[in-house]
């Protein structure tokens, strides 16, 4: 039964070998031309701010936005397999999905009524 997992072990080996190879090879073959943007921790277009411990504090709004994002993210995760299996599940699946979306919506309504969606 475990032999099913041999390819996965092989894949792990391959991934580890590639990572090891890239990390060891990069300092020798890569060019080094630094500028200010390149030395930042993340090159994603937004100016980095101070770490929370040294004084810069993040408003709690970001946390709320992230939470709401995750709630809908998870909802989508369940919607996709249902959409694929919709033919097989029929009306039962549709009803269950509506119930599921309604329960997620309850959480959303709570956030809305408590002012979680107001930015300022």
């Amino acid at each position, binding site marked *: 039964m475990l032999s099913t*997992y041999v390819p996965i072990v092989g894949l792990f080996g391959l991934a580890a070998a590639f990572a090891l190879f890239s990390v060891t090879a990069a300092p020798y073959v890569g060019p080094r031309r630094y500028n200010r943007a390149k030395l930042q921790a993340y090159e994603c277009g937004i100016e980095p701010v101070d770490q929370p411990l040294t004084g810069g504090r993040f408003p709690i709004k970001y946390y709320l936005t992230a939470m709401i994002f995750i709630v809908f993210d998870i909802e989508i995760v369940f919607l996709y397999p249902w959409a694929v299996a919709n033919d*097989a599940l029929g009306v039962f699946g549709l009803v269950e999905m509506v119930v599921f979306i309604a329960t997620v919506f309850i959480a959303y*309504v709570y956030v809305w009524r408590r002012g979680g969606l107001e930015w300022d």
Partner: protein
Amino acid sequence: MIEAPDLDYAALAPLLFLFGAACIGVLVEAFAPREVRHPAQVALALVGTVGGLVSAVLLAAGRDLTGAEADVTAGSALAVDGAGVFLQATIAGLGALSVLLFAERGLDPARSSFVASAAVPAGSVRDRELLTAHRVQTEVYPLATFAIGGMMLFVAANDLLVMFIALEVLSLPLYLISGLARRRRLLSQEAAVKYFLLGAFASAFFLYGLALVYGAVGSVRLSTISEAVATDGGDVLLVLGLALLLVGLMFKASVAPFHTWTPDVYQGAPTPVTAFMAACTKVAAFGAILRLLYVAFGTDEWTWRPLVYGIAIVSMIVGAVLGLTQTDLKRMLAYSSIAHAGFLLTGVIGFDATGDSPGLSATLFYLLAYGLTTLGAFAVLTMVRDGDGEATHLSSWAGLARRSPVLAAVMTLFLLALAGIPLTSGFTGKFAVFRAAIDDGAWPLAVVALLTSAVAAFFYLRVVVLMYFSEPAGSTGSGAVTEGPTVGVPGLPTTIVLAVTAAATVVLGVVPGSVLDLAGEAARFVG
């Protein structure tokens, strides 16, 4: 081809009551004006838990759940069997009593055990203003209802993934409500953070064990695991997976050596929440442990028997010995809860793969009896107060019998039951689990259990002696009582809780026959 699963709504009714009440509770938070929220939430939580209890009882009465009609439902994700429904009813009943404790508003001049506004920083000016405010963070009630629903799902889960989801559903609200005490807020928040961090580790252990078992068996369904275990019991992956699953579950059950969070969280959490955790979480976690060991690994008990044997001994000794050194009553009851987890594992050992397991019925009875008693003991703790909230230090309980004979008598009853003195429910429960262990040939374990019971009895009886035979705290020596703790007059909710738990402790000790029979009849898992 995927087929739509059958839903047996009568069997799901207990769960639907709880989760339905919790969802409506969230809507009440969203739309109801602040003044009506507290009564509405209490009523909703009570409807949910009592409805869950009643529908579980009706389900058990209407079907032969121990024989032909024990079944699985919802695509065999849930088991509908005697033991599962017995545990669901126990959790719903204890949950309803806990909600009553949550709802008490008359004891504290600060109006409630729960914080007025959780988002206000502890110790700030606004926080001091709100200390005696009438408002309460009423999200506590939907959260507790979700937790109770998760616990009832936990004991009925027929596959490991559902068990994991239920574990999270019961844990996440518990982490939150542990941090919502109105007084000593930093201690409460510290407890919540500790519980969350360690609990997240325990969940990770459970998940890793689940992955290993799935790797070995190719299924997360308990009955499929059982078949694979019967043919391939010694598989390293299976044994490792079982061990990791047990770590995750025993953490929730606060079994030593996975108990380190228990004293801190029990002490820091608001006392009604501590009562809730000590009673309901314990029942739920042991329900899951029993189902995992008896159903999934029931054909291979020689793998888990030495594990459980050893852990039971460690838990009993750690609970009893460290309990001796405690000076805070909440911490003392936390160590008592660890020792009791060890006694419960003594019952779990009494497994018989060929027929009725004496350990299952004994453990079911013990869980019910212990849950009621410990809930009552924590309810008494909420009543002894000084200017800074509850007075839980041992010294402030000195001479309490003179101040309030009734309270001292009730507390004495609960402590005697926890110690396992005859004519209390504790004795019947201990007798049942020890006999199950001895029937199974595990008499050395029963001897250790008896010895640790004797050690533990010392710290329970010390409180009794302190209440009856010591000078009151703050006494000037001339008999005049000046300062020290006062005994609050409980409102209706706490009175109901005390009456029910005290009556149950006596009844289950004096005439336990019918409940023992009920537990004996219920003691079947669908395999």
